[in-house]
Structures are given as C-alpha cells and as structure tokens.
C-alpha cells in the first residue's frame, strides 16, 4: 500500500488535527495539508508526471516540501530526494542516473538554471485545483523512494525502497518506540535523509504532530520550544546531542524533562554521553537504533532498560534479522561483517547489479560488528575503514571510543594512513578542549596506551578545529585522509 494512503486515511479520521507546525509557528491541519498536496499533484500531472515516473525534490525542511512529497506520492511517482544544499553536479548526476524529467524546488535557483524540468513550488498554490481523490494512490508503482547515498566513500548509489519496505519500517518503529497519535515531535533533522523522513511517515500514519525546524541552530530557543510546546519526542544525531550536553546541559535538563522519548541514530554515541542523558532525563526513554538507508532501523535499544549495554546498538527490530560473519555459521562475540535480512530491506540499487551486495538473501552492510551472547549488536565501524597494521586489524571506532573518554578531547576521528613499514598507521584527528600542545599529544597517546593494545595507539595526532561530518553526523574520514597528503 502506498504510504501516502496512510496520510489520506489519517486526514479522513483526524481532519482538524494539526499535522505540521512550521518554524514560524504557523499550524497546518491534516485536511489543509491534504488539500495542498492534492493541488501540487495537479501541478505535477499537468507537467506530465505519471505513475512510475521519477521526480526529484530538493527542498529545505518546510511545509511546502512535505506537500510536494505527498503530492508526488499521490500520483504514484517514485520520489528522489536531493539535499537542497547539494551542488548542481550532484543533482545532475541523480537526474541522469535515474532518467528523471521533473525536479521540484521551492523557487528559482540560478545556479541550477541549466538543468531542465524544474517545477517551482507555486506561491499561489490555492489557485490550482485539487486532484480528485479517486485519482490518488492508484497503486500502480511499488517503488516509493530512491535515496542516494552520500557518496562519502565513492560514487553515490540510488537505494530503492518500496512502499512495502517503508510500511514495515513504520510498523516496526511504532511498535518498539511506542509512538502514538498524541505525540508531538520537534525535528531538527534534515528531512532529505531517511532518519527524519521516516518519522514523518510514522507521524502521518498515527496522526501525530510534527514541529519543523530547518536545523539544529539557536539551541536555547529550540530547548525552550520543547517545554513551551509540550513536545514529547526529540530525535537527533549523536553530534547534535553532544553539543547540547557540552554547552547547554542545564537548559536541556530543565526544558526536556517532559519528553517521552528521544531517538538517536546515524552514528555511534560515546557511552559517557549516553549516561549523561540518562542521568539528566531519568523519565525519558532513550532509544538508539542502527540501520542503513538500505535497511533502515534494523536494530534498536532502549538504554533505560539496558544500562549495562550502552556500547551496543541493541537487538534486531521486529521482523529484522541480523547476523555477523556468514549467514550459515554466524559469529558470536567476534568481529565480522554485519548481515541483515527482513521485509524492510532494499531490493537493490537503481541501475546497478546488486548481486555483490547480497549473500543468499542477506544484505552485506559493509559494516563491522559483533553480537554478544544476549543477541545485542555492537557496531564497530565500516569494513572499508578497517585499519591494517602489519596484519593486525582494528576499526577507527575502537580508538575513537577511548579518545572520547580523555578530558582533553572534544571530538575526534581516526584514520589509517599509509606507512612504509607497517602498511598503515593509526592517525587521530582531534578537536581539543583548549589550546593543544605537545604535552597534550603525548598525554592522549599514553591514555590510549593504558586502555588499548599497543598497535592501536595512534602514532600521530593532528589537532584540528572541527571534524568534517556528513549531514547525518558521520565522520568524513576520506576528507581527513586527504589532509594528510594535500
């Protein structure tokens, strides 16, 4: 079933309930959004969009964006979402890769002017007639979304996600996070990525209310808004929560104590910060989940219930199966590639032979992890980022976890650098607290030596002002490596 059909059902059940609250405070009910999305569907159809056509949307977080998204889904188009901050070359790549004829944006974008097929979201949308209800969600196109991977480690690939995949994820998250129609979520996440976008699917399915923010800026104002608007859910990335805890812990404890739950995703979070959040908000459920665009929300944990498992990303979500190593004889308490199977799993990549990414129906994530005897998964980094020191292997995360426990380290990322003697050596990029010097460097390395096997101790430390990260909070290690050899 088309996920936009969930929205139609909710709009029929709760027409006057607020669905979206714009950053400026404007409130839009389910019936109002339904009307606007139907008008945008009419506009798209008038430009030639048909079921199965692929349409690119490139918007900041906004009410217009979600109306355009629903409008395209109403027509049974396959939606490709491109971050609005992407460069023209990326939009062109996606457009060519998927043979897209239409792309929609909130206004004219001069640097994109040479790319044909632009549909500008109209300021006078009310003048366009609503698409008749009987023409919405005809069910002729199983493919809902093609999400392009960031390309941080290579050429972007279009991950194909069907309506069935997304429906499963909606059911799964709703079940384990116990979300309901009374929930009010404030999102600062980019809705161009699946983490944030999947929450909109859940909320419009259940009848909840979403408060949109463009991003996590002006944190004191956002925290104040959480208490003023009686927000119950606040999803975020580890990086975002780290800033909040480091700089605004008191405000967070004051304003966020009414939260029913917070959800973190996208990257591992230091145990120290998980513990701090649990201590600051003892009544709030703290969920972490692990997944990829290809297999969203594959495992989850509620840390309140498992304070002895803070280093893990939990157990498989309902319907999802996870193994480490090989499907037939999975590893326990040993590190290997994480394999995932389940109804939420992508069918593959657009236009690519996906065979190498699967092993007997299991998706090869390219992630390293280990499963403990209780079935809890620990994520250990990317297989490709594994560092090989003269045959001895480690993941950046093993070292990063230790580094983050040092009082002088604000943020860090570890890479393997080419080394004549050992093949690779461990290099740590560190954002220091205060002014760094040689003494701090030695102290950090000694700290690592006291907690890690000796080959894992960084042989070099580079102090920098900021760790470059993707929008979803992942370290861009390739770009850091480039700094070593400019």
């Amino acid at each position, binding site marked *: 079933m088309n996920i936009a059909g969930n929205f139609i059902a909710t709009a029929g059940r709760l027409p006057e309930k607020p669905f979206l609250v714009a950053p400026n405070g404007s409130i839009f009910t389910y019936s109002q959004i339904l009307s606007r999305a139907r008008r945008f569907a009419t506009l798209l159809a008038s430009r030639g969009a048909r079921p199965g056509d692929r349409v690119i949307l490139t918007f900041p977080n906004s009410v217009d964006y979600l109306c355009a998204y629903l409008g395209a889904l109403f027509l049974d188009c396959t939606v490709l979402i491109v971050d609005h901050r992407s460069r023209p070359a990326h939009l062109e790549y996606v457009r060519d890769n998927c043979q897209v004829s239409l792309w929609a944006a909130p206004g004219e974008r001069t640097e994109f002017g040479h790319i044909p097929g632009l549909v500008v979201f109209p300021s006078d949308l009310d003048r366009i007639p609503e698409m008749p209800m009987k023409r919405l969600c005809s069910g002729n196109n199983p493919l809902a979304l093609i999400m392009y991977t960031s390309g941080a480690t290579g050429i972007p690939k279009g991950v194909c996600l069907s309506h069935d995949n997304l429906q499963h994820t909606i059911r799964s998250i709703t079940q384990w996070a116990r979300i309901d129609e009374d929930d009010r979520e404030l999102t600062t996440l980019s809705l161009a990525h699946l983490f944030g976008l999947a929450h909109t699917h859940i909320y419009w399915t259940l009848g909840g209310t979403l408060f949109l923010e463009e991003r996590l800026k002006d944190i004191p104002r956002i925290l104040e808004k959480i208490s003023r608007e009686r927000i119950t859910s606040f999803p975020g990335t580890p990086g975002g929560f780290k800033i909040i805890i480091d700089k605004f812990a008191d405000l967070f404890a004051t304003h966020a104590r009414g939260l029913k739950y917070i959800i973190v995703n996208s990257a591992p979070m230091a145990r120290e910060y998980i513990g701090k959040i649990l201590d600051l908000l003892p009544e709030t459920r703290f969920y972490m989940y692990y997944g990829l665009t290809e297999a969203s929300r594959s495992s989850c944990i509620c840390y309140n219930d498992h304070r002895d498992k803070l280093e893990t990303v939990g157990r498989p979500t309902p319907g999802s199966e996870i193994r480490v190593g090989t499907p037939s004889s999975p590893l326990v308490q040993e590190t290997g590639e994480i394999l995932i199977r389940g109804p939420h799993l992508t069918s593959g990549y657009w236009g690519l032979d996906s065979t190498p990414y699967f092993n007997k129906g299991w998706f090869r994530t390219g992630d390293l992890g280990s499963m403990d005897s209780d079935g809890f998964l620990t994520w250990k980094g990317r297989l490709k980022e594994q560092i090989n020191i*003269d045959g001895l292997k480690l993941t950046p995360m093993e070292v990063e976890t230790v580094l983050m426990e040092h009082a002088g380290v604000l943020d860090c990322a570890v890479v393997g650098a080419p080394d004549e*003697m*050992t093949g690779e050596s461990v290099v740590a990029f560190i954002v220091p607290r205060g002014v760094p010097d040689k003494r701090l460097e*030695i102290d950090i*390395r*000694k700290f690592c*030596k006291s907690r890690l096997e*000796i080959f894992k*101790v960084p*042989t070099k430390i580079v102090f920098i002002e900021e760790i470059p990260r993707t929008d979803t909070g992942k370290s861009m290690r390739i770009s850091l490596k480039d700094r070593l050899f400019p």
Partner: protein
Amino acid sequence: MSPNDLKLRNLLVEILLIDDDQYRDENGPDSIETWDSLAMVRIATAVEESFGYGMTPEEMVSLDSIGNIKAILRSHDIRFDV
C-alpha cells in the same frame, strides 16, 4: 641533563610513550612494553633525524637498551651525561 639527553629522552617518550623516570640506561625491550621491533625501527629513524647519524642494520638490531643507544651515538662523537 645535557641537551642531547633531553633530545633523546623526548624522542623516546614520544615513540615509546614512557614516563620521564623510565629514561634510564638499563631500560630496554624487556622493561618497556612498547619497545618492539617496530619501535626499534622508529627509534633508529628518529635518531637519524634528530642527531644526524644513520645507524647501520647491525647497530639497529643491537638496540637493547637506552644505554646502548647512547653508546652508539657516543662512538660517533655525540656526547651524553655519564
């Protein structure tokens, strides 16, 4: 402490992550856990960069104590405290 001692101590602290008080002539691979074959090569390379003397392969494999490093450098007119 002579300038050369200071230089060698800093070099070994950085490579071997030893504490200052471990900078004693009798200490070597048996008493410093980080002093493995790889560290030995790094020490030789760092000594060449800092003191301008490149060790021979034979000298490199004979590096079994801090005192021995000093002895090799002394034999090439690089002075250390006795």
